[in-house]
């Protein structure tokens, strides 16, 4: 029988809130890494996902991903379109102790942050409108199907036996594959390999990492969909992997460049969080430390890929989310144990060589599908309206060129405020305001 459990409901709602705050956290993380003339555009690309992805999810995305399977494990049907039938009673397919709405909104938060992750590869040069169109189509055509394949009842990769506790494939590898397509298609920033693109505010980035880490507890532990021992286990593995990766990243950094950096610690933590994501509910704490340590080192080394292949993955989405996600997916196939999670499977270390194969298939399918469809979407938008801002706009910065805004106005010229223009008759005499919402002026 399905009765709602208040502890589980409290837990998963709190986790949904935690995952929600990850998107503003990501906005800070990315925002600090770009130049000051592009920080608002970077923040905006994350923030607006809270609007766009949420609405798309409610109308169609959730149904495609989690409504009963329609075609051979490929896509959900339209039963839940516009949240029809998604109410306060449980959806026993996914959880018998939670209101269906709780499961839906928890999943919505994943559909918000995943496209936001992609932006790291195209910051400082993509048209905002093209970005919005790209991401809108992407959620429907890439994210929802993939979520169905891997998490949906009847999804073909799930049926295959591949494990992804909280989104190593669906979220991280998926966004990284799309990021690669986008970085290639949108092209390099003016000055790539010639100029430094010095982060404009590293404290902002580190705080963003702190918020991401905080929210990731919701991401991973919440994926247990219940406030139980499994949630606790996922919580612990998440924390330990993040911490170990922060250490291993600054350790190798110290070896390679002489000093441990703050940005390195923050980047390492994120790499660890990415890598533990698929494994978090299947492995024990020491395995988590191994996974985290490996992620810190491997993702650090993967930073060189973009220079070797000369694509401008500006904020290293591929090195961190791609490589970290693949590492995590594969190591899940090594360290997973049914002692941790009965609903899971044993990995290589516990005598089962098949899991790692399934994990490999899941990874390959995710990369292939996401890359190809993302490329096609980009191609279509490119053909109609273009993907990239003009060179002048890139030089003057996207905050101004895309949003008519400037992020900061610091000391000194406070009193030299710019003039206000007006076109409202009644103000003209006494002021210089242009006010654009007035009905008389509209």
């Amino acid at each position, binding site marked *: 029988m399905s009765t709602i459990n208040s502890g589980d409901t409290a837990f998963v709602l709190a986790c949904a809130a935690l995952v929600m705050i990850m998107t503003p956290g990501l906005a800070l993380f990315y925002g600090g890494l770009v130049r000051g003339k592009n920080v608002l555009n970077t923040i905006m690309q994350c923030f607006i996902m809270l609007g766009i992805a949420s609405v798309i999810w409610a109308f169609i995305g959730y149904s495609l991903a989690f409504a009963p399977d329609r075609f051979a494990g490929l896509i959900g049907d339209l039963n839940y379109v516009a949240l029809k039938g998604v109410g306060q009673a449980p959806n026993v397919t996914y959880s018998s102790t939670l209101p269906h709405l709780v499961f839906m909104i928890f999943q919505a938060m994943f559909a918000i942050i995943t496209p936001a992750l992609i932006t790291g590869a195209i910051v400082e040069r993509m048209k905002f409108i093209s970005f919005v169109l790209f991401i809108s189509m992407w959620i429907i055509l890439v994210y929802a199907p993939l979520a169905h394949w891997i998490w949906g009842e009847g999804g073909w990769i799930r049926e295959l036996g591949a494990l992804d506790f909280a989104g190593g494939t669906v979220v991280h590898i998926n966004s990284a594959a799309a990021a690669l397509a986008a970085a290639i298609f949108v092209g390099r920033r003016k000055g790539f390999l010639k100029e430094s693109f010095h982060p404009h505010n590293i404290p902002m980035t580190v705080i963003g990492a702190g918020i991401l880490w905080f929210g990731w507890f919701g991401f991973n532990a919440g994926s247990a969909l219940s406030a139980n021992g499994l949630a606790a286990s996922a919580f612990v593995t998440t924390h330990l992997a993040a911490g170990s990766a922060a250490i291993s990243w600054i350790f190798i950094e110290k070896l390679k460049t002489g000093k441990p950096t703050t940005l390195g610690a923050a980047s390492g933590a994120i790499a660890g969080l990415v890598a533990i994501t698929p494994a978090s509910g299947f492995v024990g704490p020491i395995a988590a430390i191994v996974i985290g340590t490996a992620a810190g080192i491997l993702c650090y080394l993967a930073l060189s890929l973009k220079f070797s292949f000369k694509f401008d993955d500006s904020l290293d989405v591929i090195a961190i989310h791609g490589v970290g996600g693949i590492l995590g997916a594969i190591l899940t196939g090594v360290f997973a144990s049914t002692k941790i999670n009965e609903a899971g499977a044993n990995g290589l270390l516990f005598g089962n060589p098949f899991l790692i194969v399934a994990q490999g298939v899941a990874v390959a399918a995710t990369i292939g599908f996401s890359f190809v469809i993302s490329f096609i979407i980009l191609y279509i938008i490119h053909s109609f309206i273009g993907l990239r801002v003009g060179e002048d706009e890139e030089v003057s910065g996207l905050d101004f060129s895309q949003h008519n*805004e400037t992020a900061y106005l610091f000391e000194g010229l406070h009193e*030299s405020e710019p003039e*206000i223009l007006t076109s409202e008759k009644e103000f003209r005499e006494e002021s210089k305001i242009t006010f654009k919402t007035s009905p008389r002026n509209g």
Partner: protein
Amino acid sequence: MKKIEAIIRPSKLNEVKDALSDIGIKGITVSTVQGFGRQKGHTEVYRAVQYKAEFVPKIKLEIIVGDEVADQIVEVILNTARTNNIGDGKIFILPIEEIIRIRTGERGPGAI
């Protein structure tokens, strides 16, 4: 000796600096300024109100040089900082009476 002051676009700083370096200029002092001139600033929008920014960010270079290279420097700046759009900036040449290197106390052209 002369003091050359140049007001240029921020986006041209690197190019100008590299070009000056190439002709053997060893020292430049750079600062950020706001320019008011023929070039008009951006129109920004906050909560439906439009603001016209009257000041445009510019970079100011100050270079002390011997009389003989002053013309060459002007030439280099003209060649590298020009975009032919309004707002390219100005070069001013001022007389200078003395220059002293703090580290050594040297005076005159040798201190440049």
